[in-house]
């Protein structure tokens, strides 16, 4: 990290600046609230660095433009929210099948349907379990501060290239709209390896190359699927990211990601001040999920309180990770309602006393 002067940016702007500093020169997108600062930043600043911003006719078009650009090996991104991300699911599936690296940002909004634009975490299932057809995964990163939005944008490109996968940065209106001081550090590596053997460049002096996901010959598709699974297995072995706090002596561990984790951090400090042995597990990668960390802590006998801004989605993965699913309680607020630290604290105290 270089010692750079901090800049005061909205979360959405931090993502856009990080992407440009990471070498992303192509952005394709379609307007939708609450992420419009990203395309607007890109439209203004990409031309300054010789890049290209293109406003597509739909999210279906923008994800496919991204596909066409990603096949050449450049760093490319798009961003959207709820309904737009739903339209992109087809493209996500093809990007997974074609094994193309790229970054997509989901500044999620409430649903189902047109919903609303307040902060929510209702897209966890869609992001983590898929949403498009077929056996595939995205790499899903869940930042909880402006700086982390910046850092994980850069990390997102690197992971996408390492695994030839699509990385999704999953945020919400709180993260996208809050202004915070950001260290706009510049990574050393700003491009993928130009010698990758699959890049589509025109077959000059070499055999033609093909990017495809259609495998009709007997057994080919199964082989392709097992190869994808092997990547996901390696991803889970090498690149899980998780933050833990006060878990060593914790009797109760809150599990939360993104905005909810940020609120819960206050709540657990309030609980500690009251003498309650409460800890926090904050998954940073939602896929791959920090199953091992949660499992290990569950074997210390702690109970868990999963807090989400939805009706209970990540809690399913927490229950699968712990020794005994009975250890896991859930607290949630759906539909764009954001709990206060005191509301979470009340629930912590209640669960703690049980």
């Amino acid at each position, binding site marked *: 990290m270089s010692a750079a002067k901090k800049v005061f940016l909205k979360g959405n702007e931090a993502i856009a600046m990080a992407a440009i500093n990471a070498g992303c020169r192509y952005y394709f997108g379609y307007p939708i609230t609450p992420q419009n600062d990203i395309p607007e930043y890109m439209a203004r600043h990409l031309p300054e660095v010789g890049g290209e911003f293109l406003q597509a*006719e739909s999210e279906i078009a923008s994800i*496919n*433009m991204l596909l066409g650009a990603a096949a050449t090996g450049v760093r490319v991104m798009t961003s959207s929210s709820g309904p737009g991300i739903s339209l992109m699911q087809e493209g996500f599936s093809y990007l997974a099948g074609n094994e193309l690296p790229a970054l997509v940002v989901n500044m999620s909004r409430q649903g189902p349907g047109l919903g609303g634009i307040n902060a929510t975490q209702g897209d966890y299932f869609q992001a983590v379990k898929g949403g498009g057809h077929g056996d595939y995964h995205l790499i899903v990163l869940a930042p909880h501060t402006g700086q982390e939005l910046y850092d994980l944008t850069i990390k997102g490109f690197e992971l996408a290239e390492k695994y030839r996968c699509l990385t999704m940065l999953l945020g919400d209106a709180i993260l996208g709209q809050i202004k915070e001081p950001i260290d706009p550090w510049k990574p050393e590596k700003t491009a993928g390896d130009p010698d990758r053997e699959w890049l589509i460049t025109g077959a000059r002096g070499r055999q033609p190359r093909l990017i495809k996901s259609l495998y009709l010959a007997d057994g080919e598709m199964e082989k392709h699927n097992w190869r994808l699974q092997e990547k996901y297995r390696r991803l889970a072995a090498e690149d899980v990211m998780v933050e833990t706090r006060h878990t060593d002596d914790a009797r109760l561990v809150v599990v939360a990601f993104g905005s909810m984790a940020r609120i819960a951090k206050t709540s657990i400090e309030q609980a500690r001040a009251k003498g309650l042995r409460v800890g926090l597990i904050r998954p940073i990668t939602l896929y791959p999920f920090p199953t091992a960390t949660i499992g290990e802590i569950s074997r210390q006998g702690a109970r868990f309180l999963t807090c989400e801004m939805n009706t209970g989605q990540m809690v399913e993965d927490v229950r699968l990770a712990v020794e005994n699913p009975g250890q896991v309680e859930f607290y949630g607020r759906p539909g764009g309602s954001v709990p206060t630290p005191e509301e979470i604290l009340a629930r912590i105290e209640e669960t703690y006393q049980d």
Partner: protein
Amino acid sequence: MKQIFARPASLTGKNFHFCPGCHHGIVHRLVAEAIDYFDLRERTVGIASVGCSVFLYDYFAIDVIEAPHGRAAAVATGTKRVLDDRIVFTYQGDGDLAAIGTAEIIHAANRGENITVIFVNNSIYGMTGGQMAPTTMLGQQSTTSPYGRDCQRDGYPIKMAEMLAALEGPSLVARVAVDRPPNVKKARKVIRQAFQMQVENKGFSFVEVLSACPTNWGLNPQQAVKRVAEEMIPYFPLGVLKQKDVVDVL
């Protein structure tokens, strides 16, 4: 001895899998001839679409990206925006381009993307087994219009070339046919011009090729070409609908 006819270098030589009397083989050859003519094989990227022509990657000796159904023009846009000194073309059927991919083709055309689009209109879905296409003729029977296409229920055969020619963006919009040798020669010329447009950075070029699908029409190859001439061409008139200035290379 002077060689006057050979397989284009841009074709791999793999035998086409197409049905007897299908025109994809002819259209593939015409595209390959155009790529050869301008010596573009090593800097061309083909975008395959979903339908019988998805396997063009087996037949063209070029880099190929397979696009999701209908999205070829959007994929080509992304590729061309990065590789702006390379030649990018899509090859799409009528279901792909004129039904599920309508939005993508209209907006790529309207942006004047510097790509070439080869649109094979055989008035039916081929690969999925003969369902009604947006270009299916009125009265034409298909597996999903078993009593014939009815304009009250199904609307009218869509005229993509005319629609795109109405936009400011495209540089070349034309409709050709490959039902008989004189038409094949005209098609060869127009497809070559379509690639020339892109070579000269003149923007979006679009060639609709009226073609036969004997298998799904339930006709033999001779009856099928007759149908192209007698039923399709009168409704889908041939010709160059729009052309910005370009030097005639022929």
